[in-house]
Structures are given as structure tokens and as C-alpha cells.
């Protein structure tokens, strides 16, 4: 059964959704990462298929912070893989903090879903006052504080909503739609799953655009965020000038941006459980290959280090670092395969 989440990646993505974990997606200019971010998002909402272990853990609400890319892009890409962002936004299962709509002071948390029927401009999103760290922290704290959808009234309203998701999904892309209503129907919002999953796309852009933010401040912001949420997923750039220049030459070389970015990425990698690294082919470009994806274990092995080692050990042992090729197709699907397959 074709799934929107590629089969080789499913086990890794499922492991990214364990509590208190952090996932880092790095990409380079030629291989952007939105397709993977959306699949992580999808897994956070509906769980990964063929994994009974995580079915009870799904149903987390998602806070999605996009600092570099517009909502229209996410909506369009999401539609192709069966992720109906507008209706998810309306049902407040996904809450979106828009980093591109800054400048306007109006923070619209328009709760009336009746007003936003089909116009994507009126979807309930949160706008940032500015890209300053304080404003982002305020916006996230505001979203974290607002009551989630676990009240019974909205819970009942989620059922017709998921059916509407399925109708739009079946209109678009055949085989992967049947699992959406089933996942939504079997899901129950348990109070234990209260903490949301947070996705931040382009967090490294803050370092570049806001010289006043030091790496230490940004890291402690992310660390406090991580202690408040279920799982934290970050997407960053790992292009060569941003990663290598400061590590090879003398310690005083490199521009502040290069040094800070390299410091930031490597520090994040040390506290991350799984690292998804996207890059182009080493041998140049090819028509039928979009790029290479490598999944590596980061510095945080809290499963083994942590208290719940006994039960998860068998599961984690068989997940080893691996590398595949992937191809994004025109219909939004993605094929992931090992070299030589």
C-alpha cells in the first residue's frame, strides 16, 4: 500500500516522535527539505503506518513555525500528499506561526472558524510582531498557553472535519486517502498527549537576520522550548560555507555568520536524536535522482542513556545509520531507495 511516508524512513520517523526527542533536518541549497518536513508533520498527526507501537502516541497537536517559507507553499505541497493544512488549521490541530507576515502588529488568533471557510488568507494563524527572539518566544508561549482542542465539543467537531479531509483527499490522490479517516476516527485525545509537537522551519535564519541574537540565547530558547513540548523538530541549512569554514581554518577566521552558524548546527546535532541530512549527489545532478538522504544518530541517545532503556532497547538496536537516494515526483510523492536497488 503506497504511503505518503516512504517505507525506509518510516521506522526512523516513528522514533523521532518519542517523547522529549529532538530531530534535526539539514538541507543544502540544491535539495530543499519541505517534503521531509511535511512528512514529519504528517507522522506527528497521524502516526506512521505499520507501526502499532506508536498508534497510541499519535494525536498530538502540532505547532508549526515557518520563518522562511510561506503558508501557501506548505498548503500546496501538503495537498499533494494528503495533508489538508487549511482544515487542520481550522480545527486547531495544527497551529501555524507565520514568520513571513511580520511587520503588521495585528496578532490574529481568529478563533471563529466560520469566518474562514475557503479563503486561505483568513486561516487562523499567528503572526510575529518581528523576528526578534523575544517576539518569537512570546508568540510561542501564547500558542502554548491557549487551550488545546481536547475539549469534548471540539472533539466531536473533529469527526466531520476529518471526513471533509477525506473527501478532498480522495478527490486528489487515490490510494493514500483511506487511512486518513481511520486514523482520525480511532484517535482519541487523551490528556496524557497534552504537550504539542513543535516544528520550526528555518530557525537558523534568525541567526543570520538578527545579529543581536547570540547563539547561547538561541540555544537556551530552543532548550526551554524542548522541555515544554512533546518533540521538537528543526530544519536548518547545512551548506558548505555555513558548516566548514570555521572548523578548518584558524579559530579567528570566518565571518561571524559562518562561525555562529557552524557553532549552532554542530551544537544542535550533539543534542539531537536523529539527524536527516539532505544533499545533492556527489557525482553531479541526475534526472531521476533528486538527492541523497542520510539518517544518522545524533549525540543524544537518551533511549539508552535514559531510564526507559529496557523496553525500547530491542526496537532501537536495529535502527542504524543509513543512506538512500530519493526522487521527488511531479505529483508530490517521493521514492526512496538504497543505492543499487
Amino acid at each position: 500500500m503506497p504511503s505518503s511516508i516512504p517505507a525506509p524512513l518510516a521506522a526512523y520517523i516513528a522514533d523521532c516522535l518519542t517523547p522529549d526527542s529532538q530531530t534535526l533536518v539539514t538541507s543544502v541549497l540544491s535539495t530543499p527539505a519541505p517534503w521531509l518536513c511535511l512528512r514529519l508533520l504528517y507522522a506527528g498527526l497521524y502516526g506512521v503506518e505499520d507501526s502499532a507501537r506508536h498508534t497510541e502516541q499519535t494525536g498530538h497537536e502540532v505547532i508549526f513555525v515557518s520563518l522562511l517559507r510561506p503558508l501557501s507553499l506548505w498548503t500546496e505541497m501538503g495537498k499533494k500528499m494528503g495533508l489538508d493544512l487549511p482544515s487542520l488549521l481550522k480545527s486547531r490541530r495544527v497551529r501555524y506561526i507565520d514568520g513571513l507576515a511580520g511587520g503588521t502588529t495585528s496578532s490574529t488568533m481568529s478563533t471563529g472558524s466560520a469566518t474562514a471557510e475557503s479563503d486561505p488568507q483568513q486561516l487562523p494563524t499567528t503572526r510575529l510582531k518581528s523576528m526578534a527572539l523575544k517576539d518569537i518566544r512570546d508568540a510561542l508561549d501564547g500558542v502554548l498557553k491557549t487551550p488545546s482542542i481536547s475539549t469534548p465539543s471540539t472533539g466531536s467537531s473533529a469527526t466531520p472535519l476529518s471526513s471533509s479531509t477525506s473527501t478532498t483527499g480522495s478527490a486528489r490522490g487515490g490510494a493514500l486517502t483511506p487511512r486518513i479517516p481511520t486514523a482520525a476516527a480511532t484517535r482519541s485525545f487523551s490528556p496524557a498527549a497534552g504537550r504539542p509537537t513543535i516544528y520550526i522551519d528555518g530557525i537558523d535564519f534568525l541567526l543570520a537576520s538578527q545579529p543581536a541574537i547570540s547563539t547561547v540565547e538561541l540555544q537556551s530558547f530552543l532548550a526551554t522550548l524542548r522541555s515544554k513540548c512533546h518533540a521538537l523538530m528543526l530544519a536548518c541549512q547545512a551548506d558548505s560555507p555555513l558548516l566548514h569554514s570555521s572548523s578548518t581554518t584558524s579559530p579567528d577566521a570566518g565571518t561571524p555568520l559562518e562561525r555562529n552558524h557552524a557553532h549552532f548546527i554542530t551544537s544542535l546535532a550533539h543534542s539531537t536524536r536523529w539527524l536527516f541530512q539532505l544533499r545533492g549527489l556527489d557525482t553531479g545532478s541526475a534526472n531521476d535522482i533528486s538527492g541523497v538522504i542520510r539518517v544518522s544518530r545524533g549525540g543524544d541517545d537518551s533511549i539508552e542513556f535514559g531510564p526507559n532503556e529496557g523496553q525500547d532497547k530491542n526496537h532501537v538496536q536495529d535502527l542504524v545509520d543509513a543512506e538512500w537516494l530519493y526522487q521527488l515526483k511531479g505529483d508530490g510523492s517521493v521514492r526512496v531507495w538504497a543505492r543499487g536497488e
Partner: protein
Amino acid sequence: MAHANLSHRRTHNLLLISKLLNQRDHASPLTLVLDTLEQPAKPLLREYLRRARLSRTTTILLAFETFVKPRDVDFFLECHDSTKVLDTVARKVSEVMRKSGNKRCLILIDSLATLVSMSTSPTSNLNLTAFLSSLLQPPPQAGQAEQGQTPQISVVAVYHTDIPLPAPSASPGSAYPYSPSPFALLSYLATTIITVHSLYVLYSETLAQAKSRVAPVFGLGEEIEGVVIGLKPKGVAVKPEEQGIVLELEHRRKSGRGVLEWIFLPTAVDRHQSGAQAVREIATLLDDHPLFRKSKEEETPEQALSGMTFELGLTDRQRLEREGVVLPYFDAQKAGGGEGGRILYDMGVEDDFDEEEDEI
């Protein structure tokens, strides 16, 4: 030469690593653990915690990048919000130590990266040396002053060597242009430095060396765009009990002498064992690991000289005959050797005795 005194190293250096990991006799007050993304130091920390539990040492983890309390930690201090950490953490640590009342205490720092980058920024006003010594020597407390004993505190701090220093926030160089880099400072302060290596990386380096090839690099060292962590080779087949990490140990003795050793620490140990099994030393020398063990033939001189066009060795018969040769003066020593510096010489026929010439 290294192979010749292998048994000597096996005895002494294994005792040393066991002493260090168990923190026996206050062997190393400040241990610096250097790691990279290729091999994080978490397995080593886990081993420290396991042994501390066995020896009933109080453990305190200053968690800069750990979010889940590890199993064997007694006190878990979250240091995530670095802005608040500095003024409170030393106080908290001494509080915790007073609460535990234990004389032996092990403080683990899971990442120095935050502290180091704060120490380079002029605004944060953090002195790394002062901070570490405040951990090692807490202000004397009333109860202990009466008893006249100080707690035995060891600090194990992890430093990620692949994290570059961030750019100073103020104008560059204005902070402390003459002060050494934090890493240099730390390596001077430390009494023991343990560098953690990945077994697979080391093994592929050895393989390359055996074929006189350039050793492969992994991860950030590869300098491939988009690669943060290297892909370890899959072909290496080792048994589960032979999997582990490699420690490059540098211990500075009180006498000033340094001890260098490569140690292999297995990680796939059944941690739920107890009693004598748990106390038994599991670390071995790297040279005793099956992947790195040098075969005996390689080391013997016969093997080293095998490529020559002429024979340097001896056959058994030649050796026997050589041993049978009686060298001159052996019997002379038997006869009158104990009588001091007398010259023993038997005049031959060709000798012409001349009193004037020989009387010196």
C-alpha cells in the same frame, strides 16, 4: 617496542583506567572527556554512572543538553536556560551535596559548549576556571568544619571538540585578546583527558594504514556539502560483546609523569548483572581487541627480516654449536679471578721478555 611490554601495560594501565572510572582514591579531580559527533561520549558517561552507583557515590548531572533524567543519576540539575544557570548552579550543587551527606561525589557535565561560548563573550562575565573550581571546592560548611573533613568531589566534563567557538558578540578581539582559548585552558586544567573514538573509524584507519592509503575521514572532516555526521562502514563484523568505544587516555600523575594508553570499553554490557560480575573490570587494552590485535608472527624478528636476500638467522645446529664455544679467559676467571687486578699472561715462545720495556 609497544608489544614487548604488553603485559606490563596490561597490568598497570588497566589498574589505572579502573581507578579512574571508579573514581577511586580521588584519582582525578577534573576529567575532561573530548568527543565528536562521530562518537559521542554518552556511553562513557553511562559507564561512570554505573560504577558510581556500585561504589555508592553521589552523582550529580548538570544537564546542558540532556532532557531525560538518566537511570543512575541521583540528582539531575537542568541547566537548559543558560542565562539563569551561572549564579544558581554552584549554589544548587553545594545544596545537593549537603542534602546527600555523602563524602564521595561525582559531578558530570554533559556538555561544556554552552559554558565555553559564554566564557568567550564579554557580556556574560563567566570565568571558566573559577566556575570549575567552585564546583570542586564548595565553600566549607559548618558541619564539615567541625569534623575536619572535606568531601571528595570529582568533576567529569564533556567537551565537544567539533563545535567551533561562536563569533564574539562585541567587536572581535576586544574581549580578552591575550587569554588562551577555552579549550587550551581546559586541557591545562584537567588531570585526565579522555578522547573518545569510534571503533569503526579507528578500524578503517588501521585498514587504510595497512595498505599505505590515506586514512578516510568521517563527518564534518569530509567537507562534503550537507554532511554533518559520517556514515560508518557496514562491513565490519564484530560480535555484540566486542562492540564498544575506544578511549584515548592521558593521565597526568601527581609526580608530573604522563601516562598514555588506548583503552577499549565495551558498551553492550548487561547492566542488570550484580555482585562480582558487575565489579569485574570490563575495559581492556585496545591491543587486546580482536580487530586491533597484532598477530605474533608479525612481531617476531624472523618475520621482519623475511624479505631479505641473505640469511641473517641461525639454524638450530648453528645455535647449539655457538653456545658450545668456550670463550677465552672463562677458565682464567675461574682460576684466579678473585685476586684483584693481576695480569694473567702465559708467555709463549714468540714472546721476548724485556724487563725495561714491560715495566710500566
